[in-house]
């Protein structure tokens, strides 16, 4: 091969690789365009204020109402329960593994916890419906067969490894000098962990928390299987609710013709879901960047 041909080939290869990388921009553009297109058509028929602030969601009934608040309430309720399970326990596990456990224990526990994050969500849905709900019904009075509590708890188990391993990374990267300083002042391990190391890793831990919340809001199958499909504006964790994601599944399972208002509702709800998780992800990224600057 002559030099000229070789240089040309190198150039062609680099351009091709660049196009592959740039393709990811097209994916983002595709998501935004598809959501915008159908949402705009939806908002042509339903005023934005009714969609955002209406309290009744019955697009599939004869008497149609398009207030998304019941779906938002269901999503927030299930995610809040998940966070209430995952945040304290994930943080405790992270503190234990990073500050107390011997390193063989840490090396053994971490991969097993990560298995929890790799279990398909439909499996967690089965677990919530067939195991957790009957278990909870034995001591929670008035718990319906479909409810927000059971899928919320199971979702908490699912996102726990995310909080524990990201927080542990944050705790781990706190310089040892800080710990030694605390010990030199006579602090115990607990005082060092809770008053020095955790505050020092605070932005890393919050980044993990926000990311986990975003994952919980976007989680679909667990709530679609175990929370029921009744949009209801309530904070009672014992009754059936419907989340934004479960609504999209519900419509997709039916035979809703393209181009109808019912069909467009799933894109409008999807847009709201996309914007919420996108905002949370941005906040999480910002927090992580800040953490990186502190100990660079």
């Amino acid at each position: 091969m002559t030099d000229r041909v070789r240089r040309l080939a190198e150039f062609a290869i680099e351009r091709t690789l660049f196009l592959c990388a740039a393709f990811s921009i097209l994916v983002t553009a595709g998501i935004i365009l598809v959501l915008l297109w159908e949402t705009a058509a939806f908002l042509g028929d339903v005023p934005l204020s009714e969609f955002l602030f209406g309290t009744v969601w019955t697009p599939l009934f004869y008497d149609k109402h398009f207030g998304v608040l019941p779906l938002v309430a269901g999503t927030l309720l299930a995610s809040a329960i998940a966070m209430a399970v995952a945040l304290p326990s994930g943080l405790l596990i992270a503190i234990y593994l990073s500050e107390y456990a011997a390193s063989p224990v840490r090396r053994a526990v971490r991969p097993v916890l990560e298995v929890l994050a790799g279990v398909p969500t439909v499996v967690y849905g089965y677990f919530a419906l067939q195991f957790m709900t009957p278990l909870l019904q034995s001591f929670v009075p008035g718990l319906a067969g479909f409810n927000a509590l059971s899928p919320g708890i199971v979702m908490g188990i699912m996102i726990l490894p995310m909080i524990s391993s990201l927080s542990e990374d944050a705790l781990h990267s706190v310089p040892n000098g800080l710990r030694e300083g605390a010990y030199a002042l006579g602090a115990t391990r607990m005082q060092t962990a809770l008053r020095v190391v955790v505050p020092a890793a605070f932005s890393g831990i919050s980044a993990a928390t926000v990311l986990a919340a975003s994952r919980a809001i976007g989680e679909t199958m667990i709530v679609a299987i175990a929370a029921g499909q009744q949009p209801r504006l309530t904070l009672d964790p014992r009754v059936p609710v419907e989340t934004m994601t479960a609504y999209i599944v519900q419509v997709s399972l039916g035979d809703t013709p393209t181009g109808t208002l019912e069909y467009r509702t799933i894109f409008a709800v999807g847009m709201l879901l996309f914007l919420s998780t996108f905002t949370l992800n941005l906040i999480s990224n910002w927090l992580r960047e800040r953490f990186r600057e502190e100990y660079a």
Partner: protein
Amino acid sequence: MTVLVHPDVSTRFLKRIGDRLLSAFGLLVTLLALIALGALVYDIASDGVGRLSWSFLTSYPSRRAQDAGILPALAGSLFVISLTALIAIPLGVSAAIYLEEYGGRGRVSRLIEVNISNLAGVPSIIYGLLGLGLFVRVMGMERSVLAGASTLALLALPVIILATREALRAVPKSLREASYALGATKWQTVWHQVLPAATPGVLTGLILALSRAVGETAPLITIGALTYVPFVPTDVWSPFTVLPIQIFNWVSRPQAAFAHNAAAGILVLLVLLLAMNAVAIVLRDRFQKRMA
């Protein structure tokens, strides 16, 4: 009056108790998480193992739970994931090579990087809406294997890119420099030195991304994949179903017999995932030996 116990001693005692408590509590919660995993596996195994049989694997779905099988779903899963791999792996690995080896610190590379990490955080059901709007409607693929695989490929792409970049980053700089010193071009260096050295890591990342895609349910339901498929998909235009959708379909029915089918289906899905991970480990070991 003499002080029998020095005040310091009692507070030190309390502090030590607090220390022990925190440690014990941490251990307890860690064990609880592991017990939850154990309960999950036990619950599913005890519900499902009775339904596992050769005929369960080779039968078509049925209205009677005892006769129902998962052949179309298993075949569909294998077909969809192979096609997903075919689409996503070349794209993802090429993108990762560009960003890691060629990209530099330019503004465009930076934009692409931020974009990819954002894509990794988009909920999977949103990819389903993209697939529905783009592949199923605009491109007219209908509810085919190709539409499903394309949707899953987009979903797996950011994971593949991030994992591949990590594997490429782990290849020591000296290897590249030695190659350049011998007069190799950039691409010769990447193709003959960097990629082979990174293969074990890349393979692990690829299998991880694909095993996540195998377990995905929501995006495929959203593009309209069928829940009742009494045939094995024959080509990329066939309608299809996959294991997670079949499991979901069975879980949603009120009869206990179908719940047992769902548990058996989950066992098959978990075995498939384990097999994929085993393949990853075997491949990684083989490549590592060759490199050593």
